[in-house]
């Protein structure tokens, strides 16, 4: 963020217009973004050399092996998994789908459809819990960056500082707030909300925990948009809402998309918040909660875990691959200034 924190960044770019003035989705091909300095060029060419390619391929393969092992294990019968390693699959390719069948279609007592209700819950939790913080923080970031009002700096710093509050510390107070309401003496500030067994507390909790980081990242991105654009819009008579909707939102799509991936994956993989606020009933619990219970009280059905884990991977993969081209660019854009 600050130049002082980046001693290697060469000539201070304080006065120069930011290089990311056109971060539209079409802005492309990294090499074109200005005259690269010699050092950068050297780094770049060393990254695209044949040696580097071999290295990258090796790392990729190495990192994929455990995942492949997981997939192979999920397709093998229980007895085979217990007696030999997954690589035996090449020698004795006896594959079965019964683990997937059990996970997908067999539920506990009174629960039909196995993982399906939990999959629906996961989506019903993750999508709103991604959209809410995104919408709120984009608006907040715009207001903090371009609307001058008294104390806006203080507000921004407080939001920035709130990132250090650990989630775990807030769990019980938040639960008390939801189940008991808030009272000042005899005055009820917030009534006791009977939200048990619904998604609402999970949405609220995830939104609250995501807002500081989201606002911070988007603020840094939005505040770097060229002032000329905004001034031109004002001259043309655009309101704040119009500017936000027609100029800011399209321009910060990469940042929004990257944060959306970030938040979606976080919420999708979250167990702690869901366990605390949604409980473990099929009415509200997401897949992570179900996966944690899948193997039974004494771990007797451990063979289902690999299949369950693979099924829970599918949706995040879809989200990631459909948005991944924004990911690195968007995150870097928001977090590093100058």
């Amino acid at each position, binding site marked *: 963020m600050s130049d002082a924190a980046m001693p290697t960044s060469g000539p201070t770019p304080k006065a120069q217009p930011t290089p990311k003035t056109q971060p539209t989705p079409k802005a492309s091909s990294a090499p074109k973004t200005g005259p690269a300095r010699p050092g950068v060029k050297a780094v770049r060419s060393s990254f695209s050399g044949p040696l580097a390619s071999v290295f990258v391929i090796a790392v990729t393969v190495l990192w994929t092996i455990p995942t492949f092992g997981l997939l192979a294990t999920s397709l093998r019968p229980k007895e085979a998994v217990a007696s030999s390693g997954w690589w035996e699959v090449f020698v004795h390719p006896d594959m079965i789908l019964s683990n997937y069948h059990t996970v997908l279609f067999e539920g506990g007592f009174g629960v039909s459809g196995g993982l399906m209700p939990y999959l629906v819950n996961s989506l019903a939790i993750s999508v709103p819990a991604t959209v809410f913080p995104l919408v709120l923080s984009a608006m907040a970031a715009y207001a903090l960056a371009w609307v001058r009002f008294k104390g806006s700096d203080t507000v921004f710093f407080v939001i920035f500082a709130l990132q250090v509050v650990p989630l775990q510390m807030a769990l019980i107070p938040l639960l008390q707030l939801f*189940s008991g309401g808030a009272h000042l003496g005899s005055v009820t500030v917030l009534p006791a909300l009977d939200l048990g067994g619904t998604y609402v507390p999970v949405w609220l909790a995830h939104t609250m925990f995501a807002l500081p980081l989201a606002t911070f990242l988007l603020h840094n991105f939005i505040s770097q948009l060229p002032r000329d654009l*905004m001034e031109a819009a004002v001259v043309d008579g655009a309101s704040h809402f119009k500017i936000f909707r027609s100029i800011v939102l399209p321009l910060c799509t990469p940042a929004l998309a990257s944060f959306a991936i970030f938040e979606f994956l976080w919420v999708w993989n979250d167990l702690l918040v869901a366990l605390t606020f949604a409980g473990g*009933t099929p009415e509200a619990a997401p897949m992570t909660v179900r996966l944690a219970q899948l193997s039974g*009280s004494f771990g007797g059905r451990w063979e289902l875990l690999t299949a369950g884990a693979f099924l829970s991977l599918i949706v995040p993969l879809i989200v990631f691959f459909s948005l991944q081209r924004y990911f690195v660019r968007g995150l870097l854009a928001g977090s590093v200034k100058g």
Partner: protein
Amino acid sequence: MIQKSRPAPLSRRRLLAVPAVLALVLAAACSNSSSGSKGSSGAVPTLTGDCAKYQAYAGHSGTKVTMYASILSPESDSLEKSWAEFSSCTGIKISYEGSNDFESQLQVRVTGGNAPDFAIIPQPGLLAQMVKSGKAVKPPTQTVANEGKWSPVWKTYGSVNGTFYAAPMSANMKSLVWYSPKAFKASGYQVPQTWADLMALSDRIAKAGGGKPWCGGIGSGTATGWPATDWLEEAVLGSYGGDVYDQWVGHQVKFGDPKIISALQTVAGWMQNPAWVNGGFGDVKSIATTTFQDAGTPILSNKCWMLQQASFYQAQWPKGTKIGPDGDIFAFHLPAVNPAVANPVEGGGEFLTAFSNRPEVQAVQNYLSSSDWASSRVKVSTGWVSANQGVDKSLYTDPIDKLSAESLTDPTATFRFDASDLMPAAVGAAQEWKSLTKWFAEGQAIPKVAADIDAAWPQ
């Protein structure tokens, strides 16, 4: 660092506040699903036919109680089946939720003001914490009366500071030794009746050379070490009887006491004897790295002969293993170290704790403490034992269940609850596990092990 390139303001017009989205959502969700107790003004309906036996619990139709426990599907399915008829006859829906983070999540929910109506608590120490929180509710008189069918010591485990709170639902027996009747028969070994016999048999097996006599594993993820606490408990209870055991649980007898040191030595001479363990896995140290689930597998391949483990170990045998007095696998009652101690039985159990006294909650509590329910649960499936004297033992179809039920309800038995579940969690669920694991894994000296555990006892 941020203001430096802060853009100039455009205008002073204010933005509309938009968190109305959330407010709307909140308002919409305020309609609730809680089961307010019905103002039982109407007459209690008369249940007929198959439902007649539930007449005592009638009058709460259309209500719902929530239950939270550590028992997961498929084990919890049997539990839900056992009260399905009760639910459909009385109209009280029991919404069951199992979690393997039960112990920590229950505390979160209770302190968060979101307590379930019932929790099935397997540790009296956790029960005491719940009572301390002030949210646990005393049982109705009918439940107290039903509990009388369990042997008196159970009442003390369901009580906190002398006040009875939670009736036991199930019991399990830990004083078992798993072995292979087939292999014993083939080699001409007899099931030992005394500790001396057991030691002699172990020696004989070790000298015969066909696999080591004992195997064991104390690995269990973050709870690694708990099977070792069971071995120590068996040694303490079997050497000195119930009184010393109770004093040990209450820390009047410390781990550093000569009695407990000597019990640790008994365990060392048994499960740390390099000639006797660890059949099928390796040396003494391998006990610490073997998971408790795997520990018994070598018995099936005759690499190991005996495993001390609780009745619930039955679930770990592979499908198709014939369990019974003349099958592939069976268990015998671990004899007392000191023959003067009559029939020591170490075990565990689960206690139904209520956090509400709504009439339908009390009706369910009464039903689940009755021997009718216990019998109904026994009929649903095996792997579950009640120490309720009112349960007909002929209902048990599984030989291990039968064996456990007989020992647990035996009036001459000295039953004691698993000590590590009774001790403060800082000891029984933390330091004792850690220190005993170190004892096995690193061969730490016994006085050091005892001193470490004593030091962790909360003042």
